[in-house]
């Protein structure tokens, strides 16, 4: 049974149109002009237990709105949401008892107190019994390496340590679902590695379902089995990463380093995208011609010293999606 079900969810915001100038300001005070913005436009998806999902899209695409609706902070304008079979709108407390949420930019820890004190509070709020608390803390300390700084005030912690503290805080009460909003933002490589490791571990050990919103492409590539890409309130893609990348960017890049300068002629199945000095780059559709065939053809004409074939990355795929957004907004 799906652990999260979203059916035809719509979220409209009503905003007041603000215009510059004193006259307009006065008028807006008495007769405010309202505008409806549709942040989430008929979105449906289901998530099975144990998945790690990347919920991604350009800024303003409606990602945090969806996360807020899934956690019960926000109510949808229409449509249905069920988390573990319960509607967050109707039974907020039951849903959040089973939810862990981490906002990358905002901590829920007490700034001036030792890290462990925040855990003490959360343990009581979520009614975690002594045995479970001990076991969870052991596991969390183990994976996250908390012993080094669990006794230090949160304000003294580095960003990576604080993020680990927030992750522990979110998992303390053994939730089966974890929402992470930009968890690796601003972290150094080592910290990012630790966070990603943690997510993989708890997903494996506890079958925790994870929904991750992030702009970090490494996060997506290294963690997510599936991504849901949203743009302008609608789902643009929903599926395994490999399939999406393949679908959006069948293009490959063949980078060639020549032994000596030569005349470079275009190839019927490939496009020259770069040619300076001894370096030539060909772009080709792998569905039209295989890399090996292209290399065979070109090596007949060109004195090749070295070459490499580059696969598109999720970044290329996303660029395609976001490009579409730009085109649309430029026209609008």
């Amino acid at each position, binding site marked *: 049974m799906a652990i999260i079900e979203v059916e035809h969810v719509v979220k409209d*915001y009503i905003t007041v149109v603000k215009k510059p100038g004193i006259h307009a300001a006065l008028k807006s005070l008495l007769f405010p002009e309202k505008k409806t913005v549709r942040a989430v436009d008929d979105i449906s998806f289901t998530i099975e237990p144990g998945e790690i999902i990347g919920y991604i899209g350009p800024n303003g695409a409606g990602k945090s709105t969806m996360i807020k609706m899934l*956690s019960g*902070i926000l109510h949808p304008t229409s449509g249905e949401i069920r988390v573990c079979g319960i509607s967050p709108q109707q039974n907020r407390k039951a849903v959040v008892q089973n939810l862990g949420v981490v906002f990358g930019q*905002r901590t829920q820890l007490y700034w001036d107190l030792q890290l462990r*004190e925040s855990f003490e*509070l959360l343990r009581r709020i979520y*009614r975690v019994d002594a045995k479970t608390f001990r076991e969870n803390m052991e596991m969390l300390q183990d994976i996250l390496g908390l012993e080094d700084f669990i006794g230090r005030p949160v304000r003294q912690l580095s960003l990576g340590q604080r993020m680990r503290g927030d992750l522990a805080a979110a998992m303390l009460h053994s939730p089966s679902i974890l929402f992470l909003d930009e968890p690796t933002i601003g972290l150094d490589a080592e910290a990012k590695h630790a966070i990603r490791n943690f997510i993989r571990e708890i997903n494996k050990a506890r079958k925790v379902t994870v929904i991750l919103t992030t702009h970090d492409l490494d996060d997506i590539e290294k963690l997510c089995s599936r991504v849901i890409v949203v743009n302008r309130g609608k789902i643009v893609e929903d599926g395994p990463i490999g399939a999406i990348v393949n679908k959006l960017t069948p293009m490959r890049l063949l980078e060639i380093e020549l032994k000596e300068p030569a005349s470079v002629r275009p190839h019927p199945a490939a496009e020259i995208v770069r040619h300076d000095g001894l370096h030539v780059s060909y772009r080709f559709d792998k569905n039209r011609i295989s890399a090996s065939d292209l290399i065979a053809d070109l090596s007949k004409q060109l004195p090749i010293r070295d070459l490499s074939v580059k696969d598109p990355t999720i970044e290329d795929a996303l660029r395609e999606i976001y490009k579409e957004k730009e085109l649309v907004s430029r026209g609008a």
Partner: protein
Amino acid sequence: MLSVLRHYGSVAACYLRLTFQQQLEYPLFLVSWMLMIPIQYFAGIYLLKVIIDHFRHLNGWTYPDLVFIFGLGLLSHGLMVVFFINSWMIGRMVIDGTFDRLLLRPMNVFFQLIASYFNFIGLIDLIPGIIIFLYACSLVGFEWTLPNILKLVLILAGAVLIRAALFVMIGSIAFWTKKNAAVHNFALVILERTTMYPLNLYPYLIQALFTFVIPIGFISFYPASAFLDRDRFVLPFDLAILTPVIGLVFYGLSQLIFNWGLRKYESAGT
């Protein structure tokens, strides 16, 4: 039912311990506050004395009367500041998103808001209040009989509820306007002038406003008048007893408004 009480009780106790530690973190910061507040309040009493020395009385209120109402008002203010000061934070929490965190926890939102900050620092307001009130009691010859003490406790409880309700209602405006207007400063000034000074200094219209529309008069003016045998309004019952009742009703109203605002916040977001 019992388990719910135990749950909320244990969380409240933990909040108490943690906020105590938090407020102890920077004790020196309080030095300026500990100087300013007593200066403000004791100077307030002194200025009243100066005025009365020249002008004998204010609308029939003598110096002992004035100190009594000043002290009584200050007592409920101090208590409110100790227990309910987080009601001033609603606007700020809505704006910077910390309010969302309360919604993410499986407990009543209002409880989290208020219980999460027991303002020990508010004792700086409360202690001068106690001193001034006791001083006033000695001036007016207040009798510390059991019925009087009981009355006093009920009145203070009701007064604190009225004050708290007021700030909760004002704070709840942020749910609709999504702005942090810091209107509570405005409310504080009004409260100071209407609870620490006799309400009948002001025109009848204002007295009526603060009796029948916003029951500020019941915070200290009517109770003080009753204690001092100085009923200005002719009403058939002891107004002092009305205060706790009005306090509960007004507080209930503020709860309705808070929850209504919360629902609005959940449907509109930020």
